[in-house]
């Protein structure tokens, strides 16, 4: 997890295109300036970043399903529940699955767990469009390699 670059996902553990599901891991850093403010003397992973981790996890699933032709952008967050605290150093397991594939949009359910215990979950809506430029696409392809994106689902890998 490189919070300064907003890269929350460390590793894709499992990605099943046919079942439209993904599992990733994300290690919350032990130390980060974010924890100096959130909160002083009581560091907690911010809920918005947990939501972002679910969004990025869902995003990789959608990129796989769209074979790296389109880029998903988060459009709506529903039923987001922060169930228990996430603290520095914890290893997150994030799961996402597709609820509905519409025309130009997709809805996913996602959840974050630590050691099998559910920490938060949400229903997310994404709009997706063809990659707006080659820079973004190249960046995403490089990041895909870094986090273990299965090359067989990357038509351009």
């Amino acid at each position, binding site marked *: 997890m490189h919070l300064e670059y907003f890269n929350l996902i460390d590793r894709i553990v499992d990605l099943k295109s046919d079942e439209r599901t993904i599992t990733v891991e994300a290690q919350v850093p032990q130390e980060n300036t974010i924890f100096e403010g959130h909160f002083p003397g009581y560091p907690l992973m911010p809920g918005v970043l947990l939501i972002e981790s679910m969004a990025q996890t869902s995003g990789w699933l959608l990129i796989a399903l769209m074979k790296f032709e389109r880029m998903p952008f988060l*459009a*709506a967050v529903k039923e987001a529940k922060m169930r228990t605290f996430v603290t520095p150093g914890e290893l997150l397991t994030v799961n996402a699955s597709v609820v*509905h*594939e*519409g*025309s*130009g*949009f997709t*809805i996913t359910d996602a959840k974050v767990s630590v050691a099998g215990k559910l920490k938060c979950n949400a229903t997310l*809506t994404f*709009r997706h469009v063809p990659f707006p430029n080659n820079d973004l696409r190249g960046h995403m392809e490089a990041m895909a390699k870094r986090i273990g994106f299965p090359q067989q689902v990357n038509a351009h890998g």
Partner: protein
Amino acid sequence: MSSTFDQVANIIAETCDIPRDTITPESHAIDDLGIDSLDFLDIAFAIDKAFGIKLPLEKWTQEVNDGKATTEQYFVLKNLSARIDELVAAKGA
């Protein structure tokens, strides 16, 4: 069995919290009911589920942007209902 329009109107009323009696077949979803594109995704999701279809929103948007169609053709509710009926019929063909 309720008409396609009634089903669509009920979906819009529930999804967007719009009083059902203000929604008519002549209502334009965008211009009259004030539904924006993000809210329309929720409506599309509900319509897709209810009718077992996939509203071709991207195609419609492209046609409107290209000047090949007007928003009235797709977003006035009697027309939207007709498009849904066509999609349902095509699915069963």
